[in-house]
């Protein structure tokens, strides 16, 4: 694993979302800046055949999974060149053939679907496993319980990854969730649970690797909680309720700066390399924008295709 590539992947997400944010014509979006380490660390633990399912906050995970930024942007803008031909749009982007089974914007709604995908892979004799990424918000819902129970009983190859950014819209996690550690929820089912620093891509990767390996070797499901922080508001259309002090404090723990600092300290990231990466991702983002903008909107008649 080239750790500089992990850094680059996080930087790409950050730059991609920043560009999106600067272009309000694109409509509201669910950004994940601040949470890049969770997506990137998890995806680095997956192989090409594995499948990833996510919540509606899916830009970072889609890019981290290696989807083409231009096609991702096209989908977010509702353009035909998106993998879903612009029909899924924000919150529902998917490219199963690329190992991104898809986003689903019903909070907690991806959990049981992910268990089903895992059951299919298991039944079909595949070596692939399923990772399911969801927010702390999903931990108050019953789908998590039902999924943990059935995944444990059937030893499904499923890694449940909670990106605990400590908020569900405006509601602090402590006001919505009684458990001290969300990963504790897995324990009664005999499912291993672990809580890691979600701002540290290496911590996420290491823990994810262990659980992915467990799932792949027939050891069944696991629950990885990554404690992170969302730098922007819930969506670009939602007012933020957090204090500037809280935001400042959190932003000082940037996953990108943490990783960059670490690599620099180890002599693996000379200043010009960092600058080159910045340039690199900026290019990628602007190429994505050109690609997406050049793509047409679907024809209105598409409203009736692929329904049944």
């Amino acid at each position: 694993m080239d750790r500089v590539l992990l850094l680059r992947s996080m930087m790409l997400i950050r730059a991609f979302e920043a560009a999106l944010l600067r272009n309000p014509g694109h409509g509201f979006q669910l950004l994940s800046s601040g949470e890049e380490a969770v997506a990137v660390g998890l995806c680095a633990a997956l192989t090409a055949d594995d499948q990833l399912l996510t919540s509606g906050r899916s830009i970072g995970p889609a890019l981290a999974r290696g989807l083409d930024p231009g096609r991702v942007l096209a989908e977010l803008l509702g353009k035909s060149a998106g993998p879903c031909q612009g029909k899924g749009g924000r919150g529902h982007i998917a490219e199963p053939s690329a190992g991104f089974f898809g986003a689903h914007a019903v909070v907690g709604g991806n959990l049981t679907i992910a268990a089903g995908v895992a059951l299919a892979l298991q039944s079909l004799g595949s070596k692939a496993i399923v990772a399911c990424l969801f927010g702390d918000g999903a931990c108050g819902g019953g789908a998590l319980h039902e999924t943990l129970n059935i995944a444990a009983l059937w030893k499904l190859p499923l890694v449940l990854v909670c990106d605990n950014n400590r908020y569900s819209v405006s509601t602090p996690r402590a006001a919505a969730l009684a458990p001290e550690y969300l990963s504790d929820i897995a324990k009664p089912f005999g499912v291993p649970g672990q809580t890691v620093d979600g701002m540290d891509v290496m911590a996420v990767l290491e823990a994810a690797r262990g659980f992915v390996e467990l799932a792949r070797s027939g050891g069944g499901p696991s629950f990885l909680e990554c404690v992170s922080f969302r730098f922007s508001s819930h969506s670009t259309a939602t007012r933020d309720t957090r204090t500037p002090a809280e935001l400042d404090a959190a932003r000082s723990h940037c996953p990108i700066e943490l990783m960059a600092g670490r690599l620099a300290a180890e002599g693996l990231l000379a200043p010009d390399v960092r600058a080159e990466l910045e340039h690199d991702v900026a290019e990628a983002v602007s190429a994505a924008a050109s690609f997406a903008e050049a793509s047409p909107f679907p024809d209105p008649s598409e409203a009736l295709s692929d329904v049944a």
Partner: protein
Amino acid sequence: MSREPQTRVVKLFFREAIARALREEMARDERIVILGQDVGSFGGSYKEFLGLYKQFGAARVRDTPVAEASMVGVGAGAAAAGLRPIVSITYMDFLMLGLDPLVNYAAKARYKTGGQLRVPLIVKTTAGAKGQGVAHSQCLEAWLMSVPGLKVVAPSTPADAYGLMKSALRESGPVVYVDHKRLFPMAGEMPEDEQITPFGLAKYLRRGADVTIATYSHMTQVALAAAEALAAEGVSCEIIDLRSLAPLDLATVCDSAGRTGALLTLEEGQIVCGVGAEIAFRVREKLGGAVRIDRVGALAAPVSSNPVLEAACVPDSARVARAIRGLLAA
């Protein structure tokens, strides 16, 4: 003179017809799995899965917890990823617990992924009243009919239970297959050879000249009884078993109603925004105001397990006959 091939006939109970379809299809298609409460060695609440566990094993016939929401979700995910799951929801009332994965995911996955995914999920459930009370007696077919991307079928005979289940197992998208509690004791004949019932094709159960009854599932029995009673009064009823609600065979209903000039829709569930309201609208759209139409369904009340109140709530042949007399007198 060429010899006519003999069609051998077998007589099966409803549950046996379902099990036969599942057995044949599971042998043909390894991707078919069954998920549900007590579907394993127990063989299902109505024994409709009997023998399958023994034949196909615990990996393909899976007992599940009482967790309808996740079972529909797991089925939907598994279907999207290459299996053909049949999820058994013992009573249709509990399908409410699984509507989010069924409607918000399974029915929309093909559309929202621009055709990348298909969800050949079958939800098999049982509707209708038979003494089990307010939360075990409902008929929600009309809700499901309204969901783009979902198909809905409901047999009234063992032959169609067999034939519709076989069709369902070859669909590329989600299907809700609806049995009825009162049909399980029924036996019926069907060809020994495979005979598939296509979706979207209604069937004449009885020919008649004066009035058309469009119905499905157990209410076909009620319609037949009403037709008998009315025949004694000289009223000749034609009965159509819709079999498939989505897609709906409007052409057959229109053909018949166009001939008889009168249409009664009959369903066991609520009539408000019901199957009958939909059929009435579409028949009028085709045939205009010439056809008299009425509808019969449950009273606007919950269905009690109380024998008196259940009987009062759900349509019976007397109520159907009364409605037809009213319709013909109008």
